[in-house]
C-alpha cells in the first residue's frame, strides 16, 4: 500500500480540521497562538476560521489547514478478526455438534462500574446494532450478573454455573480502573482454576485497546462498536474449534 495523506477536496491536499480551546482571552494574540499550535502539530498553512470566547479566560478555535505528514497503512498494527463470523443458527449448530450441551456464558460489570450498557448490549436479547444479544442463541445459557459484581462473586458464579466463558464489561476508565479491574479479574481466575479448565476470559469496553489481551491476562479484548455476533462467534470459535496450536499461541 502506498503512502497517503488527508483528503479535503483534492488528492494530496493534506487538509484537516481541528478544534481546541486555549486558556487565554480572545485577542489577536490568542488567534496567533492557535496558529502556532497548529503549526507545531504539522499544519502549515493553518487558517483560524472561528475563534470564540468561552467562559472567562478561554477561547475556542476551529482551524483548517494542510498537514505535511504522510501515513503508511502498511505499518499499522491492528487485531484482525481471526475467526469466522457465524449467524446465530450456525453458532447454535456448532455448539450442538461439538459440545452436545449448552455453552454457558457468565457476564457482568466488575468493580464499582455501574454501567451495564455494554454488557447488556452484548447479552440482552435486545442486542445491539441490529444483532440479537447472546440470550437469543438457543444453545447459549447466559447468566448476566449485572453491575458492580466483585471479582470473588464473579469467580464464584462462574464455578457455580460451570461457565465456559466469562464476559466482563468495563465502561468507567477513570484512573485506568478498567485495566486494574481486568488484571485483578484474570489473576483471580488463574488462581481459582487449573490452566486447562479455566473458562475463556473476554473483556470489552469502549476504551480498551484490542492488542492488550496478553498484557491483561485475558483471551480477548473487544473495543468500541463490537456486536453480539462478533462476541458469540469468537466464543464459539475458541470453544468448539480445534484447540489452537502452539504456534498460534506464540504468534
Amino acid at each position: 500500500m502506498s503512502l497517503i495523506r488527508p483528503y479535503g477536496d483534492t488528492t494530496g491536499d493534506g487538509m484537516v480540521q481541528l478544534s481546541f480551546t486555549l486558556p487565554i482571552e480572545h485577542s489577536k494574540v490568542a488567534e496567533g497562538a492557535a496558529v502556532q499550535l497548529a503549526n507545531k502539530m504539522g499544519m502549515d498553512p493553518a487558517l483560524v476560521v472561528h475563534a470564540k470566547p468561552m467562559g472567562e479566560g478561554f477561547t475556542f478555535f476551529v482551524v483548517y489547514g494542510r498537514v505535511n505528514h504522510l501515513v503508511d497503512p502498511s505499518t499499522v498494527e491492528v487485531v484482525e478478526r481471526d475467526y469466522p463470523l457465524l449467524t446465530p443458527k450456525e453458532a447454535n449448530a456448532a455448539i450442538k455438534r461439538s459440545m452436545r450441551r449448552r455453552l454457558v456464558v457468565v457476564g457482568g460489570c466488575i468493580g464499582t462500574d455501574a454501567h451495564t450498557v455494554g454488557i447488556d448490549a452484548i447479552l440482552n436479547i435486545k442486542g445491539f446494532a441490529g444483532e440479537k444479544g447472546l440470550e437469543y442463541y438457543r444453545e447459549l445459557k447466559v447468566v448476566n450478573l449485572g453491575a458492580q459484581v466483585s471479582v470473588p462473586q464473579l469467580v464464584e458464579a462462574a464455578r457455580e454455573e460451570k461457565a465456559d466463558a466469562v464476559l466482563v464489561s468495563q465502561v468507567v476508565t477513570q484512573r485506568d480502573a478498567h485495566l486494574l479491574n481486568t488484571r485483578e479479574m484474570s489473576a483471580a481466575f488463574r488462581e481459582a482454576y487449573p490452566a486447562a479448565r479455566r473458562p475463556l476470559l473476554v473483556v470489552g469496553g469502549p476504551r480498551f485497546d484490542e492488542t492488550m489481551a496478553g498484557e491483561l491476562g485475558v483471551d480477548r479484548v473487544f473495543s468500541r462498536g463490537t456486536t453480539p455476533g462478533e462476541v458469540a462467534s469468537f466464543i464459539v470459535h475458541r470453544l468448539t474449534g480445534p484447540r489452537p496450536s502452539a504456534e498460534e499461541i506464540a504468534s
Partner: protein
Amino acid sequence: MARTTSALGIDRADVRRARTLARQVGKPIVDLAQHHTTVSVERATLRLAGLGGADPDGTPWVNRLADVVRADVGLEHGVSLPVWDALARGEGDDLLTLAQKAAAGSITFRVPEGKDAKRASAAARKAVGAGIKQIDRQRVAREKMIAKVGDAPSKPWIYLIVATGDIHEDIPQAQAAAREGADVIAVIRSTGQSLLDFVPEGATREGFAGTYATQENFRLMRAALDETSRELGRYVRLTNYASGLCMPEIAALAGLERLDMMLNDSMYGILFRDINPIRTFVDQRFSRQVHARAGIIINTGEDNYLTTADAIEAAHTVTTSQLLNEYFAKEAGLEDWQLGLGHAFEIDPEVPDSFRLELAHAMLARELFPDAPLKWMPPTRHMTGDIFKGYLLDGFFNLVGALTGQGILLVGMMTEAVVTPWISDRDLALQNVRYVMNAAGKLHEDFRPAPDGFIAGRAREVLGEAIGLLEEIKADRSVPGEPPLLSAIADGTFGLMKRPADKGKGLEGVARKAADYYNPATEILEEK
C-alpha cells in the same frame, strides 16, 4: 396551553382510568411501606436529630449506633425509643457520646415500656423536630433568596452536570457552568455510591466518574452556588441523587443543606441496581416525605427505561412509570410543581418519523401532567461518537423541548459517549439550546398536531398501551399474597429485569414494624 380540550384528542375518561389504575396498583405498596422500616430510615432519623460524623475508619456514627441498637433489641421497634431511653438513663450526655460508647460496647439498649417509653418518645420527638425545623428554615431561606436575587429567567431551566470526582474541582466548574447559563447544577455521584450502605463523611476528593454525596460536599457546593447566584442575579439550583441504599439519609442531608432538586425514582434502584424492592419502596416513601417538607423538586428516572429497552416499544412503560411515580409522590405529600417526571429522546434516528414519534411521546407527557415541570433528557444511546450528527440530534431534542414546554432540560452534549464534557462542549451545547429557544421557543403557540394525524394517534396509542400495562400489573397474582406490583416486578414486566421481592441488595436492612414501633420523623412529617 388550553387545558379544557386535548390537543391530542385524548379522552378525559382514559386519563382518569390511568390514574385510578396507578392508585390501585400503588396503594398496596404504600401499605407495605407503612408496615416496614429500614436501617436507612432509622439512620436518617438519627441524622435529623443531629448525629453526624464518623469513626476513625470512616464508618458514620449513625451506622455504628443503629447497628448496636439493632443487635440488642432488633430493628422492628425503630431506634428512637431505645436510643432516647438510653440517653434518659444517663448512658451518654448526647447522641455522639452515646454512639461512641455503644460502639465501644459499653451500653446495652432496651425497649422502654410505660412511662419510660413516653419519656423516650417525647425526647426523641424534640430532638428530631429540631432537624425538621432546620429543614423548614432552609426552605424559607431558599424562598427568601429567590425573592431577593431573582429566579431563573425562563423555562425550561437549563440543567448541566459536573462530575470530576473532587469537590474542590467541581466547585469552580459548577460556578463556570452557572455563569455560562446553567440554572441547575447536578453533581453526579461516584459510580457505586448507590450500593454503599452508608453515607461517606466529609469533603471528598476521590470518586469514580463522579463525586460522593456527603453532607459536607452538599454544604460546600450550596455555599459556592449561593455566592454565584448573588453575582449573577438569579438563584442557581443544586441537584443530587436520593437513590440507592441510603436514599432516606441523603434526602435528609439534602433538606438540611438546602439542595433544590433530587433524583428520586420509585423503581430505578430495584430494576437497575438490583436493590430489594421492599427496601426501595420503604426508603422511597420516607425520602419523598422529607423532600415534600423541604420544598425539593424530585426528578424521576424514566429515561433509564429507554436506555436499555427500545424507545418505541417501551414508550408506554415510561408513561406507566410516570403515573406510578406521580401516585407515590403525591401520597408522600409532594405537590405537582415538585414532580420533575422524567422522559427522554432516545428513539433510533434511523427509524422513519423518529422525530414525530418523539414529539408525540413528549406531548403526551405534557398533556397528562400539565402542572408538573417534567424533566427532558437528551439522547445518549444513539450518540455514536459522530459529534457532528450528535449536535444535530441535540438540536432536534431541544426543539421537542421547546414545543412541549419542558420545565427542566438536561443539556445534551455532542461528545456524549466520548469524553466527560469539555468546556467547549458545554459552550457549544448551550449555544444549541439558546438558538432553538430563541428561534422556536414560542412555536408551541402556533403548533397543533392534526387531530387525526400521526402524532395525535401515536400519543393515544401509547396511553392505551400504558393503561393496558397497568391493568396487566393490577391483575398479576403470580406471587400470592403479594402486592401485584411486586409480582409484576418479579416477572420482569419492567425493562426485562426480574426482581423478586425476596432478593436483591439491602434486604437484610428491612424489618417489619412491631406494634410499639416509633419514629418521630415519620410522625412529624405525616402531621401536615
